[in-house]
């Protein structure tokens, strides 16, 4: 394996963004830790097959995403509201409510967004990945990723605006 790709340096470089992505998806610390560890376990056993060191990041995120989808298939789907498309007018969250947003509220709301939009939106907000990388990670075309991000953000903001905590903050 390439010297820059020894296990410890890969962990040191990517464990934090991977954990953030895992937590964005699972919303539970223990599950996020498991998902992160599982991803690095797979890296430890199969990472040597990777021929392009520059692809480590997308390889890890793709692996994590696959693992997440695999585990989700074994669970009950998250209940979520059917949302209309972004074409409808976007509700505006008041500045006061925006200032009081917290991570629990945001992630709980992200969990209610259509599943297909959750991963693109999380990767978008984590800002570690370009659109091209997000497309590679999620294994969908670039245009699809952009569209899903836009729609996902629209849904997220609409749900946030309707969130009881946001309503309370607005009063």
């Amino acid at each position, binding site marked *: 394996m390439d010297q820059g790709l020894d*296990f*410890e340096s890969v*962990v*040191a470089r990517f*464990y*934090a963004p991977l*954990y*953030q992505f895992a*937590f*964005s998806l699972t919303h539970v*610390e223990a599950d996020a*830790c498991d998902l*992160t*560890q599982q991803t*690095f*376990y797979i890296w*430890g056993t199969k990472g040597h097959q990777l021929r392009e060191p520059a692809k480590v990041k997308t390889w890890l995120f793709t692996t994590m995403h696959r693992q997440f989808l695999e585990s989700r298939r074994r669970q009950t789907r998250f209940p979520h509201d059917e949302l209309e498309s*972004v*074409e409808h007018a*976007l509700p*505006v*969250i008041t*500045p006061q409510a*925006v*200032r009081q*947003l*917290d*991570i629990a*509220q*945001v*992630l709980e709301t992200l969990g209610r967004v259509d599943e297909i939009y959750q991963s693109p939106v*999380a990767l*978008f*907000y*984590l*800002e570690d990945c370009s659109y091209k990388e997000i497309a590679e990670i999620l294994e969908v075309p670039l245009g699809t990723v*952009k569209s899903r*991000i*836009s729609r996902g*953000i*629209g849904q*997220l*903001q609409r749900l*946030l605006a309707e969130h009881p905590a946001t309503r309370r903050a607005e009063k």
Partner: protein
Amino acid sequence: MTSQEAKELLLRYRPGDEIGDPEMAAALAQCERDAALRAWFEEQGRTQSAIQECFRKITPPAGLKEQIISEHQAALRAEWWRHPRVLAAAALIILMTAVTMFWLQRDRGQSNELSIASFRMRMVKEALRLYRMELETGDLEQIRRHLANRQAPADFNLPEALGRANLTGCATTRWQGAKVSLICFLKDKSNPTGAKSDMWLFVMDRAVVKDPPPPGERRTAKENRLSTVMWSLGGKVYLLGTEGSEAELQKWL
């Protein structure tokens, strides 16, 4: 581009997105021209920043990195032998050992098979159980002709005493691909057992055996219930065997 279309694009705006993305650049340009859109975009920017800030606050629990590395090292220790290179090396060692053992055994086997002891053991077995008399005669010249016809050694020399023994016939056999002549004798014509032969002389090309007795040396041995003596003479190896004692056998040499 309508205001709604611009909003859809601007929802996912990240600084720098307009570079290389004409649609995003157009949406930003429209913001400059449309005050309402600009106000929405500014508000949107604050919302996005707040949401982004929430994501940035996600931090891994203390010790996660160390735990990942520790578990990896434990897995490596537990499964080092499953590594493809280790398995390949083990397989290679096993293969080389097997090949070496095979050749050693083969050489040893070949060596043992060509020994004078192996010849003696096989011929005694032949005398006691296996052979079928091909020619029954007391005439030595007939025996020589028969053996010559069978491409077996026929120009053998009998010890003087053995030359006076009662010939009963002959047969041929093979050992390690070489023809062997068997000349049969009856020591005592009044043998109470009724056996047709009770003494046997085997003659074979000396070169076939890897450790024949040196010329002039007589090598005696007990094999099964036969007493045997072996010697070399004129490019041939001789094996004489009979039931009874070695001393009795010596009388015929």
